């Protein structure tokens, strides 16, 4: 139940909080490499905005990956995977961990938590880049790390079932509608797909997001949003003669309509239509950053040698036992 979930307690923020955490993650990454930088190289680092664009590009690509995935995945798997991805990059920097492979690991984990069973071999056969063995080892290696960063809060409440609930409710209560409510389904799902590439899932409750999808669907189909208002009034038990009165129920309806508007606006604003030029430019910068990183690694090991090779060599990672049952 969402009201008592970790999603509501620990993973719901305002947009300012989200921006702050992303900035922090970026700062931590910069601080790590600060001492080795020579003059001017600071410029090569991505700023939080660039990192966000990078995430969005990856999210966009992942939508296509999810659509092409065989066997067909159900929508809540997608929602869960995106939720993991967004939660991770609140604290991780996109410059440090490759978002491309992280989102794949998120998908793999989401399939497990959402009871959509695929083996790792089946999963990697859906990937177009990299060798299967390499992908397998990277995804399985990331999986426990992801779970640790998520604080093992793996349950994600998606808006798809609430959407079905609302739709059923509308069909039951709004008997006088002159059109078939199923016609809004396509557009509503388009809204959900768009919402996946925004931060709304970390800001609002799934029941409200699903209402926003309904409104979006109604508007796209050229219907009046008043239908939704009427439905909400019926849902809250506001009688017809109480229209315009300041009853408690009506206040709630008005507030909820405002909230729905906010959600739709957030989706529209947050959603980035990234054109190829932007993408190319970012790719260039990311490439430069990768070169810089390898240069920094070289400098670090030189420094380590100069200091008399004391302690662990930089880049040497303690192998942690991977707690995965797939191997």
């Amino acid at each position, binding site marked *: 139940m969402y*009201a008592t979930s970790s999603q509501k307690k620990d993973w719901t923020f305002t947009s300012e909080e989200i921006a702050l955490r992303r900035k922090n993650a970026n700062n931590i990454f910069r601080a790590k490499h600060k001492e080795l930088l020579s003059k001017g190289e600071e410029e090569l680092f991505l700023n939080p905005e660039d990192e966000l664009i990078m995430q969005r590009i990856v999210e966009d690509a992942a939508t296509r990956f999810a659509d092409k995935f065989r066997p067909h995945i159900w929508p809540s798997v997608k929602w869960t995977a995106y939720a993991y991805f967004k939660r991770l990059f609140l604290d991780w920097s996109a410059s440090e961990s490759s978002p491309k492979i992280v989102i794949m690991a998120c998908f793999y984990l989401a399939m497990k938590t959402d009871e959509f069973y695929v083996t790792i071999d089946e999963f990697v056969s859906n990937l177009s880049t990299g060798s299967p063995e390499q992908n397998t080892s990277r995804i399985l290696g990331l999986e426990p790390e992801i779970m640790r960063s998520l604080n093992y809060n793996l349950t994600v409440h998606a808006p798809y*079932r609430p959407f079905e609930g609302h739709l059923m409710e509308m069909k039951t209560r709004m008997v006088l509608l002159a059109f078939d409510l199923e016609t809004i389904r396509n557009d509503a799902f388009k809204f959900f797909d768009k919402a996946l590439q925004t931060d709304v899932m970390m800001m609002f409750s799934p029941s409200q997001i699903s209402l926003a999808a309904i409104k979006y669907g109604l508007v796209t189909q050229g219907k009046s949003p008043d239908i939704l208002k009427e439905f909400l009034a019926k849902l809250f038990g506001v009688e017809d003669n109480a229209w315009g009165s300041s009853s408690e129920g009506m206040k709630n309806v008005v507030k909820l309509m405002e909230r729905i508007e906010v959600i739709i606006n957030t989706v529209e604003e947050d959603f980035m239509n990234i054109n190829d030029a932007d993408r190319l430019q970012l790719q260039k910068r990311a490439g430069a950053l990768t070169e810089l990183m390898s240069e920094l690694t070289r400098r670090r090991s030189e420094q380590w040698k100069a200091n008399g090779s004391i302690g662990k060599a930089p880049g040497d990672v303690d192998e942690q036992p991977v707690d995965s049952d797939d191997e």
Partner: protein
Amino acid sequence: MMINECGHPLCKNCVENLFARNSGNCHVCSRLLKKNGYREQIFDDPLIDKETAIRRRLRKIYNLKRDDFPTLREFNDYQEREKNKDTIERNKRRLDEDQKWIEDNLRDERAMKNRINEVLAQESKENENTAVTDTKAIMEELRESNVAAEIILDRERKRQIEKELEEKEEQEKRKRIHKELLQDRKRHAESMSFTSTMRVAGRPYTHQPLDLVINGPTLPSMKDIETMGYLTHMKAASAGRVAGGYTSSLGCMRAIFESRVDLLAF
């Protein structure tokens, strides 16, 4: 010549005569014999005849061979029995540890009872003696001292009364202790429990139905879902699922519940 088990030969005519009644005494050793016990004497020496006869009979019981038994098992049993006859017999008479222990205890108990009885007997004897010496002493005193007899008797009577009182008190005390013991036992019996759980005194549990905070419009009841026509907009559950306990109203309820949770979370 004929011969019987005692080994004293007799001619056939004599046997017919002496044992006309089928049984009679041997003419030599007066042993009671049966007429049909007589047989033809084979060896001249009656002693040898007797011995061979006994041996023959014994062979029928002992020294049997395998072909005397229908199965090998019975033959083995027989051999076993014969071989261990002595041991079995001995063991029958020997006591095992439990029996020994019981015997010992019984013996101890008997000894203890005897001892107690002895002590008691001695005590009563002594008592008698003291009573006797008491009266004797009083008599002496009466006779020899020059105190008035009244005073002496009075003193003795007083002493006797005191003694009796003391005894009475003692008895009462014993009674009281006994009574307390009984009461204690009774109380224990009343509160006795055969389960290992302890009785914990405390407030009885009152059930309070849990409050489901939805933060949205209240949910319709299961009945409402069926009567208000929600189910017409839902795929009917397959027969297999219904058999497994899933009804379409359950799924409907879940969707409606999730659509209302935190709808008013602003």
